[in-house]
């Protein structure tokens, strides 16, 4: 059978997918064991036992000063910032992207601005951002939103602009106004793409969150990573990074399932059956 036609069952797929990840873990363990054999105090590739030990304190022992369990306090703070940043960016992408995609005059006016903002690396302007918005969470949330919104806006605008012209014409012949077309034709068809754009933005959003927390913060996953980096405590950094990856994958899966559930017409339905 041609490879292109080989379908993989759910079970096989799980096994195959685990393979390279397990291989990578084994490689890590091997390298870590080697380094530890050469230097038992090696900090760069800690052994799992070392990580467990380092994480124990953060996970289970309340911080004597604040009374918080640091790991959970970090997670909560970061998730809040990330959630707000993603929320703002998503709302902006939906509103601006929709209007930009469907109304040529708005596209002409705002398109170049959005492009310009999209290409300015926000990291380079951090001082201005922090000065304008202060050192509180606002600046970090703004960094996330500014970092990912332009890409999302352009993605959504492109998607809306690519709606078949026939659909818009059809809606107009059915008496729909510009507003009604936006609300009932473009908006719902944008939603699955919006969730997709959000998925793709998750990676950059974490990067911006960590960069923001690295600069000014006193709690958060990125703060902790940069705090202990001074001591090259990879035994804390690696578990934190894995935890971030886990959170990100959970969000990714939630978005995929949510989209399937909410917008069945956009998924798989069309795998079979011909269309006019």
């Amino acid at each position, binding site marked *: 059978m041609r490879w292109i036609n080989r379908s993989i069952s759910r079970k096989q797929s799980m096994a195959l997918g685990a393979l390279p990840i397990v291989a990578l873990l084994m490689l890590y363990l091997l390298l870590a064991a080697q380094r530890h054999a050469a230097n038992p105090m090696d900090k*760069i590739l800690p052994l799992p036992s070392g990580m467990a030990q380092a994480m124990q304190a953060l996970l289970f022992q309340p911080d004597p*000063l604040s009374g918080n369990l640091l790991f959970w306090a970090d997670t909560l703070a970061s998730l809040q910032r990330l959630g707000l940043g993603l929320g703002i960016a998503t709302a902006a992408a939906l509103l601006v992207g929709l209007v930009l995609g469907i109304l040529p005059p708005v596209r002409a006016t705002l398109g170049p601005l959005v492009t310009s903002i999209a290409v300015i690396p926000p990291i380079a302007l951090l001082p201005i951002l922090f000065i304008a918005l202060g050192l509180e969470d606002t600046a970090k949330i703004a960094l996330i939103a500014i970092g990912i919104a332009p890409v999302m806006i352009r993605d959504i605008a492109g998607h809306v602009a690519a709606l078949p012209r026939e659909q818009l014409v059809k809606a107009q012949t059915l008496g729909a106004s510009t507003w009604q077309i936006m609300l009932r034709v473009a908006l719902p068809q944008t939603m699955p793409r919006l969730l997709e754009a959000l998925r793709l933005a998750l990676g950059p959003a974490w990067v911006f969150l960590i960069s923001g927390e*690295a600069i*000014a913060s006193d709690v958060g996953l990125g703060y902790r990573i940069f705090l202990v980096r001074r*001591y090259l405590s990879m035994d804390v950094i690696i578990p934190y990074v894995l935890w971030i990856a886990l959170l990100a994958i959970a969000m990714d899966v939630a978005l995929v399932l949510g989209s399937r559930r909410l917008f069945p017409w956009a998924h798989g339905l069309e795998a079979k059956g011909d269309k006019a």
Partner: protein
Amino acid sequence: SGSAPPPAKKHDFTIGWSIYAGWMPWPYAQQAGIVKKWADKYGIDIKVVQVNDYVESVNQYTAGKFDGVTVANMDALTIPAAGGKDTSAIIIGDYSNGNDGVLLKGADNLAAIKGRQVYLAELSVSHYLLARALEKAGLSFADVKTTNTSDADIVGAFASPQVNAAVAWNPQLSVMRGQAGVKQVFSSADVPGEILDLLVVDTATLKANPDFGKALAGIWYETMAVMQRQDAQGKAARAAMAKLAGASPETFDSQLTTTYLYTDPKAAVAATTSPALVTTMTRVRDFSYSKGLFKGAASADAVGMAFPNGKTLGDAAHVTLRFDESFMKMAADGKL
């Protein structure tokens, strides 16, 4: 910068700090209630805010977001003062006595640095220390190449086998020194008193609110008193500071041994009024000027500095960095 005209009386003040052995007393004082005690005494409110990134904390102060900040003498000169922000150093907390160092791999004398690629945070006190080290070794900047390295990443960078020379400060320095085959060939202990760690405040704010300065001095010396005690209470205080710095108590204690803390206000006043300070600052500003840190200035005299007893250095008409011993003196005299 002080864009708005100096505020008259204020009630709320913010000072920024970042992690460094000599500055950990500030967050500890906040936690232990010492800040609140002294602020209440003068009827004001002081917030102590952590900024993870040192440069950003100084930038925020320069931009007017903080009324005061913890900063090294060189950076106080090159960032706020050179930017036209009139700044007063009211507490000289310590000088680095080994907290900054030059590290080499596979060599144990300073001369071996010749021809190497040196990793360091450029234009920082590390750069200054390297300049002093080269001077002592009879070398110049032409004999080495420098690579700018962010202070957060220098530990990881130094772990790379290719990197064999670096300049860093604590806590990074002690971690890097712990790696196999690494030798410290020069440190700030070789140039004592040249790298000072200060608390600086906005001069206009200070003039309008002298109580702010008094409260800060009160906080500092009460905290000093607690942390130098060799009993359980002192130990607990130092452990709390270690925790705030993300370090173990042992590591933190070892960092303190290379930090010359002016625990006694009298010693601090003496250091501030001593002519050695003028000599040090002359060196520092000449170095800074040579590195182009006084933007567009025609000479190293462009930025004026004032010292106790009316001494000045550079352009006396444009003094933007003032070493003000008066609050330390009040502490020494028990007048707070």
